[in-house]
């Protein structure tokens, strides 16, 4: 198949890129490929809001400063300044395309407060912001005749020849056969890597495929050791219990019934910043003051004192979710929660134009690291990032494609790729179960690369991951059929995750400081002297090779981060 632009990933970033490219020129043929139907992407899970400066009293500088400070000064400030300026128009575009944003009485778009933002700038559509954004983008996309959607195609590799991108290979899930998409430009918008962790707010599909594929093809990954943890994930599934629960006055209790936050943040109590609360909760658990449940220790999120009326009025979805997914009615019982893996700050190293190290290859959204989130993302900044940089990627790729020559995937590449997937992986026999490997990987991540990290645990993790990688060579896929072989795709995903886990673990081991979400017990201070720099990881067959890159600072010199 031949297209001008191939976009992999149909989340907010991928679909925004497709629209941007289609708007650029009607002559461009655009393929949008994803392993699920577009509206099944992970972005639909986003709840709270999308940041943008819309109203009097707010300013670009303020939004930028909040973001930079939130990032613990690891964000590239030129990127942040560009980003904040582009957010508002994206909100209005979505509005014009039908997004049912929540409204003020006067009919203007409403905004709500969000953690770390010093102005109410989270634009929201009830508590289903991501869901409505995805549907709006998807539906708008249907207007463009030059966008062709290929749902349920699973990308396996990126074809790069002569230093330029040629296209991608994908398994058509329905038939089980491999298809090759040749293109002048390829955009990856494949999302984060949250399923590295066992306890996570992420959808099952977020396995970091795009990150791993790019990485294996020599494109470096940036800042992968930074993973955000949200304080309140519902047990057992990890479904997000929004910050609003605490905002509305909910308590966090340990097993002695004590509001332990008074010992960690006596002033802000439960509404202290995410990383502070997460660390406090985890300390309670480690020190044995968590509740014991069937699914391990937990902390109680108590809303009972708010009363049924207020819960129904302000947090109806939370109540619904707690009942449906944990069998707990918050009106009668406290909700069992614990901190949960929530966001991948790192990603494919790109510049502000979403360009990467390879010509014609672009990345946007959570899989990219333009670096506006640095060491810690602010809530509501990531859907905004997907919109802004999705657009940039689409436009830049379109410009590039209008002047580039058609990519060609060689016969050799095709044969090698088919052999790799169907003969070497699907065809072979072995005695390892990929699911067992995944379980052990998740356990390792959850115990050694969690909120508190230290050298010993990280070293163990690295060893374990390398052992798992070794064992992975010996996996057997039981389902030998072709059509909709989810056994095969799961196994491929697990292979991707192992590579990424290694990058995360070694990167974390090397970074001997605490910054944002990366907290080292053995190095509890931020160290601007030595570590105010981005981690860059390159693939080698023996494991990742690391390099570092300076942070771009325009206006704001690093200061102590206090809230």
């Amino acid at each position: 198949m031949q297209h001008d632009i191939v976009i992999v990933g149909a989340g907010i970033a991928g679909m925004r890129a497709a629209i941007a490219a289609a708007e650029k020129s009607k002559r461009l043929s655009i393929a949008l490929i994803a392993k699920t139907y577009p509206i099944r992407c992970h972005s639909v899970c986003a709840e709270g809001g999308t940041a943008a400066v819309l109203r009097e009293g707010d300013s670009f500088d303020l939004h930028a400063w909040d973001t930079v400070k939130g990032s613990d000064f690891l964000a590239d400030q030129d990127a942040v300044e560009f980003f904040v300026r582009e957010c508002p128009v994206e909100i209005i575009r979505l509005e014009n395309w039908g997004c049912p944003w929540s409204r003020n009485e006067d009919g203007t778009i409403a905004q709500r407060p969000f953690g770390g933002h010093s102005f109410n700038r989270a634009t929201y559509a009830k508590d289903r912001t991501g869901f409505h954004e995805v549907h709006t983008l998807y539906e708008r996309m249907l207007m463009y005749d030059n966008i062709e959607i290929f749902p349920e195609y699973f990308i396996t590799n990126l074809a790069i020849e002569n230093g330029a991108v040629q296209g991608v290979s994908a398994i058509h899930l329905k038939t089980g056969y491999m298809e090759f998409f040749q293109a002048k430009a390829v955009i990856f918008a494949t999302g984060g890597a949250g399923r590295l962790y066992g306890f996570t707010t992420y959808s099952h599909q977020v396995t970091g495929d795009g990150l791993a594929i790019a990485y294996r093809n020599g494109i470096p990954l940036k800042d992968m050791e930074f993973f955000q943890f949200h304080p309140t994930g519902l047990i057992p599934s990890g479904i997000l219990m929004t910050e609003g629960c605490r905002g509305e006055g909910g308590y966090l209790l340990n097993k002695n019934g004590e509001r332990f936050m008074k010992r960690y943040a006596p002033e802000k109590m439960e509404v202290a910043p995410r990383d502070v609360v997460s660390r406090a909760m985890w300390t309670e658990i480690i020190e044995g003051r968590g509740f014991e449940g069937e699914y391990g220790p937990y902390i109680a999120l108590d809303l009972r004192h708010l009363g049924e009326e207020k819960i129904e009025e302000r947090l109806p979805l939370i109540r619904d979710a707690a009942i449906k997914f944990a069998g707990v009615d918050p009106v009668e019982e406290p909700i069992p929660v614990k901190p949960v893996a929530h966001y991948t700050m790192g990603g494919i190293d790109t510049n502000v134009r979403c360009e990467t190290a390879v010509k014609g290859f672009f990345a946007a959204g959570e899989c990219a690291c333009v670096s506006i989130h640095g060491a810690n993302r602010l809530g509501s900044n990531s859907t905004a990032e997907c919109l802004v940089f999705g657009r940039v990627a689409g436009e830049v790729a379109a410009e590039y494609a209008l002047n580039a020559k058609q990519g060609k995937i060689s016969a050799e590449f095709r044969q090698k790729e088919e052999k790799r997937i169907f003969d070497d992986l699907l065809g072979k026999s072995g005695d390892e179960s990929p699911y067992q490997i995944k379980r052990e990987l998740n356990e390792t991540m959850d115990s050694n690369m969690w909120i508190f990290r230290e050298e010993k645990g990280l070293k163990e993790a690295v060893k374990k991951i390398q052992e798992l990688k070794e064992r992975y060579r010996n996996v057997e896929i039981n389902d030998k059929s072709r059509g909709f072989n989810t056994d095969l795709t799961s196994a491929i995903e697990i292979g991707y995750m192992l590579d990424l886990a290694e990058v995360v673990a070694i990167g974390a081991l090397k970074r001997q400081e605490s910054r944002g979400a990366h907290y080292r017990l053995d190095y509890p201070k931020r160290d601007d002297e030595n570590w105010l720099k981005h981690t860059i990881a390159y693939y080698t067959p023996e494991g990742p090779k690391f390099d570092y890159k300076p942070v771009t600072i325009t206006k704001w010199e690093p200061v102590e981060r206090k809230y």
Partner: protein
Amino acid sequence: MVRFKIRRYDGKKSYWQSFEVPARRGMTVLEALYYIKENYDSSLAFRASCRMGICGSCAMKINDKPRLACETQVLTLGNTVKVEPLDNFKVIKDLITEFDGFFEKHKAVKPYLIRKDDNYAEPKELLQSPEELNEYYVFTLCIKCGACYSVCPAAATLDECLGPAAMTAAYRFCADSRDEGQKERYEIASSSNGVWRCHLAMECSEVCPKNVEPAKAVQLLRRKTAFSILKSLLRW
């Protein structure tokens, strides 16, 4: 232990298979399916992603009723749980059904805001009061899970029929105060595959996991469509 009876299909033959799953409080049917896939039979195929009832992947027939596997608690279902693919969709493999046609139908109703002053480069904020928003908001909640389509009697016998979800999408935009595309959409909805094929069986609203009330949307759309076309006829 809960017994799971699953309807399998491998592309050629269809058969039942049973598994014993250790169920605990909080376990959903989706988790049980993953448990089966990861421990007993990894060839079991099903769709799932968000596991929080918002992506629409995991609708299937659980104890005869279409539900989202990810929001159905195993312990509420008794000792035996029967899992089958949705009716009215062609089965591809096990619990996975063909959805291409379903999305085609959604696309066919022009489910996007249509405005003459559409300006990509310099968009302007349009005002909409909370009341105007409420006019259509409930119909935006559709996750395209297909549960409604699987129980609609018209969809059972007519492959091309638009079905409740697509018609709900059409109405959602027609009822949006910002939209100017009603006429186009009424014409589409009034095709023989459209609103006329609904006989208010209302099962769609009964099974919708998001309480979108598709039956209401279809009935409102039909009324508007009928009157709009009759009006244009009288003007001839």
